[in-house]
């Protein structure tokens, strides 16, 4: 098992955003995490990546405890440490380094593996120059994989929306993850773009040997490519199983219809 979210609960004041989430991901799986607005999907990601510490429960990556810190001095892992261990993510509301170039956005992901010291980097010692060259080459490769290599000089903020989404995925891939968490990667895309993106995600899973957990708002989008699906509603895991099982699950239908009725 690659990831085990072991009975995670998180409370914000009186609100229980996620309640007793128990999720297990096997190596190489592509798993969906769906649910209506405010179900707690992003919050679950934030707990897995150490942005939030769960009120109860823990997160295990290959049996290693990677649960986040409650405060800077509390025990637990920082988000950057979790990234270094092989968990990368994208954000629901794109968070690129908008004033930096496309290439720099990706190269930054290699900084955590940098061996050269500050002095070595400032003095541009041979060791650093070699590392910088390697980082650059790897970044270009990743940009090629997502089809953005021609735009490498462009400021990230100037890219089209779909390109920004792909750049965010490229940046996450560049950290060299085992587990990739995608938070609504198809948000804001039309059905055709969404379909293309799903094929792209399927492809990078193979090429980069990844396990992927993907949040999606729209149930139909994930049905096609996810092997298993977890469904959250009001923080509770109301169902889990194969797409077919989920589609016919009465609680899921109810949750989604409820949303539709109120929308």
């Amino acid at each position: 098992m690659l990831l085990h979210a072991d009975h995670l609960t998180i409370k914000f004041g009186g609100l229980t955003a996620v309640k007793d989430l128990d999720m297990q991901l096997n190596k190489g799986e592509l798993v969906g995490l769906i649910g209506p607005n405010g179900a707690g999907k992003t919050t679950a990601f934030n707990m897995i990546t150490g942005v939030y510490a769960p009120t109860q429960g823990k997160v295990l990556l290959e049996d290693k405890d990677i649960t986040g810190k409650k405060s800077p001095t509390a025990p637990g892992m920082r988000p950057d440490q979790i990234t270094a261990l092989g968990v990368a993510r994208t954000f629901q509301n794109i968070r690129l380094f908008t004033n930096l170039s496309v290439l720099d956005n990706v190269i930054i992901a290699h900084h955590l593996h940098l061996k050269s010291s500050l002095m070595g980097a400032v003095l541009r010692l041979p060791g650093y120059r070699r590392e910088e060259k390697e980082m650059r080459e790897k970044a270009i490769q990743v940009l090629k994989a997502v089809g953005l290599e021609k735009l490498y000089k462009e400021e990230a903020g100037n890219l089209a929306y779909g390109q920004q989404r792909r750049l965010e995925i490229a940046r996450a891939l560049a950290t060299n993850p085992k587990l990739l968490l995608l938070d609504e990667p198809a948000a804001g895309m039309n059905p055709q773009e969404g379909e293309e993106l799903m094929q792209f995600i399927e492809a990078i899973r193979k090429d980069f040997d990844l396990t992927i957990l993907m949040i999606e708002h729209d149930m139909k989008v994930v049905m096609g490519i996810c092997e298993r699906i977890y469904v959250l509603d009001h923080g509770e895991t109301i169902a889990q199983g194969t797409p077919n099982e989920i589609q016919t699950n009465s609680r899921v239908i109810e949750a989604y219809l409820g949303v539709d009725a109120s929308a």
Partner: protein
Amino acid sequence: MKKETKILAIIVTIGTIAFLFFANQFFDGYKIRIMNLAAINIILALGLNIINGFAGQFSLGHAGFMAIGAYTGALLTLSPSAKQMNFFIDPIISPLANFQMGFLPAIIIAALVTAVFAFMIGVPVLRLKGDYLAIASLGFSEIIRVVLTNLQSLTNGSLGLKAIPSYINLFWSWGFAFLAIIFTFFLINSSYGRAFKAIREDEVAAEAMGINLFKHKIMAFVIGSSMAGVGGALFASLLTAIDPNIFKFALTFQILLMVVLGGMGSISGTIVSATIVTIMMEWLRIVESPMTIGSLTIPGISGMRMVIFSVLLMAVILFYPKGFMGTREITWDFIQEKINRLRKKGKNETLQKDEV
């Protein structure tokens, strides 16, 4: 860097060096003093820009770190007899009394001592963000000043230090300014500099990319502050007399002004604006001295310069929210773009005239 920009940089450097030799020969003491001050301000402003502009940590503690550098430099270069003269209320503590060293080692030690203090202050302060960080760093800067006022047998308290050896000349000041520029350039364009910029752009994303936020914030803070230490040591040698009151918030504000005007996150912008602001500061002394226009005598209003600069700062923030250069640098392409735009403007105007 593009080849043209490199050539441009080399030409500007050679031009500046030639100008320094010229100035050293022919300029009077007053002008040389202003040029020294400009160089020192470049060092100080670059330091602050690393913290505020590149790493995005809005710190207002620069004057405090300058003070530490200035006092360290002064105490290390003062001769034993001068120290005896200075410390007539309380004698100076023994190891320092008979101690004297050259300018260069004193500056280096000033940088290191400042770095140590910056680290100790940075650890608690950099846990804070935005306004809280600004206020806390400002508070620590004031605390440094209060401590310096009260350590009678180390700093001579509010009496300050006088007869500091005036080693400084154009080559010392501009030599260090060049070092600071080159250092900042290589730092900002290294992987560490990229990490600073990523933190400035988006902390959450930077952390998700595996960047240790705290470590890099501390790094930027310590580097920028120790540049303030170097600037402070040079400043003390330029003034030859220092006391704690020099290092009030107004000094930080002055340097912040240079950074904001030039562009938070622009090295060349900082260099240009530090130089211009320094010269204007001197030139605007006119408005603070009594003036006679015809039979009317206007008394000088001290502090008028800062009023003018505050108004200027507000105007810039309104019209150029990112300073004149923003995060851009003055490169060959940038200059060409500006020239092209001016040309087009000229053409459009002539066209319009033709139509009329």
